């Protein structure tokens, strides 16, 4: 007996991007529609954890596609750009993300895990955000200490 196992290759290869890059996604599909129609194509990265998939909303891009009326299956294509907004601007952290593309108000959605590898977020921003709680504590202590000293002087 021969056990023949073959892994299907991923449709999309993982690709490296820097925070701040613009990504262009191209899609193909078939459609029918009774009237000329403009639809909205959206795309963006998503992260995956124990609780599911989470779209990075700050990075979602959108573009309009015009679909000429067709009562038989017609070929359609479209492209949409989205910006990998750096984390310092409220965007994406360094890491590996999936890519999701969909057409608004339809069932059309395509996605693939682990194809967008983001690097290049400046470490300065990270250090600042990491130190923020400590800075806040020091600030509060700086406000409280003079008050307690004043109270001590009054009671003494």
């Amino acid at each position, binding site marked *: 007996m021969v056990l023949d196992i073959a892994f299907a290759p991923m*449709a999309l290869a993982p690709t490296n991007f820097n925070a701040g890059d613009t*990504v*262009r996604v191209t*899609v193909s*599909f078939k459609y*029918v*529609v*009774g009237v000329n129609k403009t639809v909205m194509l959206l795309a963006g990265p998503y992260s995956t954890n124990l609780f599911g998939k989470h779209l990075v909303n700050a990075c979602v891009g959108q573009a309009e596609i015009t*679909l000429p009326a067709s009562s038989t299956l017609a070929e359609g294509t479209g492209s949409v750009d989205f910006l990998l907004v750096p984390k310092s601007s409220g965007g994406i952290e360094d890491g590996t993300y999936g*890519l999701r593309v969909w057409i608004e108000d339809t069932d059309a959605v395509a996605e693939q895990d682990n194809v967008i590898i983001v690097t290049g977020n400046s470490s300065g921003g990270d250090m600042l955000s990491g130190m923020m709680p400590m800075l806040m504590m020091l600030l509060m202590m700086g406000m409280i200490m003079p008050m307690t000293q004043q109270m001590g002087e009054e009671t003494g």
Partner: protein
Amino acid sequence: MALKKLEMELKPFTALGEGAVALAEDPVIPGWYVDPATGQRVFYDPVAGKFFTAAGGVYIPLGYMNPAPKQVAVAPGDRLMVSISFKYTGPAVSGVTGYYCIGTNGIFGFDEKLVQLTTFSLPQVTSPPSYPNVTNSFTFTIPSNVDTNWDDIYVKIFGGTPSIGGQATTNYVFGYENALLVAGIQPTITEFKISDFAKV
């Protein structure tokens, strides 16, 4: 507009003195019944005029839907001819009703959107035919308000003299799921995939 065609072939059946005719009358009260052909317990709802069976805690209509062998693309204004054919053995029957329905099949039954009736006769046939010997058809005109989920079709035949079965109890019902690709106001999109992605 274009005339599209969808053909359906019902299972062969006989109409006289063989079980099915004994079910000619619909039950009059709701409740559980036993299908004499299969022994299956079924629930009859006289308001909906349908039989249901229970599975997983919900009532589902008895199965008669099948995957469509092909999809027919239609748009508002198109004419869609649905034709049925079947092998018939039995006496001549006049006034048989053909019930043609387009709609949405779901877990709670078939949501009928377009219904049309035809009347036709069955010839007297004494020996089983080797090929379908009865045909009937109806041509729908797809309305402008068609929705993209009106993609299922079923046909049943009933009544006649002598009766081949009641409207709700007829054994001669057959449907196709996803038989239509509807070009409505909203687009129907298939084979949606990412071709490429890259930095620009």
